[in-house]
């Protein structure tokens, strides 16, 4: 099965070459960060987390969203997801890998990162996040590999894998819940300290993850003989629609509490996001682009005739991914630090090496994803010939 990863057409190798090149650029930048320290990033004493932790947060959602194909397929026996489910599981594996790497590159003392396991600290949410993320990666790898191998051989999957599959469903919910708890349990940061954060994270994850899956499925169909099926893609589109609408509702709920109560600590963060605070408005353009995309995508998705045309759906899916990425991967983390506990407004913008490292981590994730999907495609193509 693995041999197929080493045999491919020109496009396959070019794609891997592009990822490889970006990985090298990222590694070079990371080398500089190792030598000089995190001062090469745009972070500061006031904004202590930036692009890295924001990408981690976004990608935990992508990883968790595999449950949106696993649950219908295994729990409800929804056959149309038969070919999609492995794509979801392998996407989760590469997303977990990227999550881990983003946390790793954010560490001031990366060589000591195993201290988290050497000195397990039950009261630290970060410890639990390590556990659930690592566990989720392993579960998805085992489930993906075992079920796919069985399918390749034309045999039913072994029975012992079933409990693991069922376990993966609540586990997926747990990874994004625990990730939200990283933020929502901090009395120092009123912007994050809201009970809606975990539900919001899940809703936005179930919009962005399946959107990414739609885009990947459409790409696979265009460039390979692998077709996850029109019905499967449409079902994903429906899932994205529901999740996106629920996400908008959750955002509205949060805005209401913050703005109607008119409590300064709550209002300041939203002011900073939407109109700028005391002349500081670095994120405002991003946020408005995100909001505009959200509205357009929700409207487009809600109209069945638009959603059902795949060329429109592709655009909508990309729109959802960007909108959620802005929400989680740009705005959510940084705004928690503004204003600082001492009332200072320090803005944040990532530096060039920071962006290079970020792109490098994404490239590594997509390298792994490309190889995994290549194996899937090759095996399927062979199966269909027989």
């Amino acid at each position, binding site marked *: 099965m693995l041999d197929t990863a080493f045999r491919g057409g020109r496009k396959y190798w070019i794609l891997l070459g592009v990822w490889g090149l970006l990985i090298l650029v990222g590694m070079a930048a990371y080398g500089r960060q190792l030598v000089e320290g995190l001062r090469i990033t745009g972070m500061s004493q006031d904004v202590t987390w930036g692009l890295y932790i924001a990408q981690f947060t976004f990608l935990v959602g992508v990883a968790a969203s595999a449950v949106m194909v696993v649950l219908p397929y295994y729990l409800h026996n929804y056959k149309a997801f038969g070919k999609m489910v492995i794509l979801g599981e392998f996407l989760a594996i590469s997303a977990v890998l990227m999550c881990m790497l983003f946390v790793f590159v954010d560490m*001031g003392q990366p060589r000591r990162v195993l201290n988290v396991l050497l000195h397990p600290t039950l009261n630290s949410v970060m410890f639990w996040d390590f556990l659930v993320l690592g566990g989720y990666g392993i579960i998805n790898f085992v489930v993906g590999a075992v079920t796919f191998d069985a399918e390749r051989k034309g045999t039913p999957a072994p029975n012992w894998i079933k409990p693991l599959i069922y376990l993966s469903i609540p586990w997926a919910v747990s990874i994004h819940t625990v990730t939200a708890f990283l933020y929502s349990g901090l009395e120092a940061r009123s912007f994050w300290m809201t009970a809606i954060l975990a539900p919001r994270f899940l809703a936005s994850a179930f919009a962005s993850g399946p959107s990414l899956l739609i885009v990947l499925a459409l790409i696979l169909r265009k460039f390979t003989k692998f077709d996850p099926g029109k019905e499967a893609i449409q079902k994903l589109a429906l899932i994205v629609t529901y999740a996106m609408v629920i996400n908008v509702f959750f955002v509205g709920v949060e805005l209401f509490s913050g703005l109607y109560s008119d409590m300064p600590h709550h209002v300041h963060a939203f002011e900073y996001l939407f109109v700028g605070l005391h002349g500081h408005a670095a994120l405002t353009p991003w946020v408005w682009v995100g909001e505009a995309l959200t509205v357009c995508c929700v409207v487009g998705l809600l109209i069945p005739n638009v959603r059902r045309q795949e060329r429109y759906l592709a655009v909508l899916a990309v729109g959802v991914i960007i909108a959620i990425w802005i929400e989680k991967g740009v705005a959510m983390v940084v705004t928690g630090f503004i204003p600082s506990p*001492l009332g200072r407004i320090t803005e944040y913008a990532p530096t060039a090496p920071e962006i290079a490292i970020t792109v490098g981590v994404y490239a590594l994730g997509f390298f792994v994803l490309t190889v995994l999907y290549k194996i899937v495609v090759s095996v399927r193509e062979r199966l269909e010939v027989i």
Partner: protein
Amino acid sequence: MGVNRRDFLKEAGSAALGVGCGLPLLGTACSAVSQEPHGAESSARQWAMVVDVEKCRSEEVRRVCTEACHVAHNVPAIPDPAEEIKWIWVEQYENVFPDQVHNKTAAFIRQTPVLVLCNHCDNPPCVRVCPTQATWKRDSDGIVMMDMHRCIGCRYCMAACPYGSRSFNWGDPREYIPTDENGRFPTDYPTRSKGVVEKCNFCAERLREGLQPACVEAVNQIPGGEGALTFGDLSDPESEVSRMLNETNTISRRVNLGTGPNVYYKV
């Protein structure tokens, strides 16, 4: 209130353990209890400090405090505020006590310079979130300690601290520590490496020798600085800090958060 937060968590945690053994998420609740990593003595002191805001109006007083601290701990002098390391420093009253000022508070009150440092809280959020116990509340005397060799530099404690009392070494701090003509650092206190978080340690190394914290000792030696900072053991009702808290009006920072600061301000 009869039940403090930790006891509540302890109770809730035991209950959670009983109900859902092995459920990892419930475990987080109960584990707030297990904070005894670094051994402890039985004598439970609680060091505390009282800052006299009026006496700290003098620039000289504030300068002496910060300088004594920075020399004692080889604190780097980094000019860029984005990277500046802070142990004891000055902030404006309105930012230190945001809940104590109102729309009509006079400007001279708002802008009063106030010395701030780590509060060595009773219920420190930084300790709660640290994934490696690199920061912990010492049972013997209530100091919130830092282990620079265990810290992985994740900066979770900085997100959790409601006082901005923690600084991260974004680069190598040693480049910014003033040295003498032989290239030696001011004291033997261990310098830090890049990539770890640091903060005020209430001069744990001096207390061990029976000395007062550097800032307290220094400020009480200059004219006009007597009593600007008072340091002592809160568990001892006869101590100077206990007496001051009993007899004068003191406040502490952001009390509503429930962290229980042990730095008090006489206003």
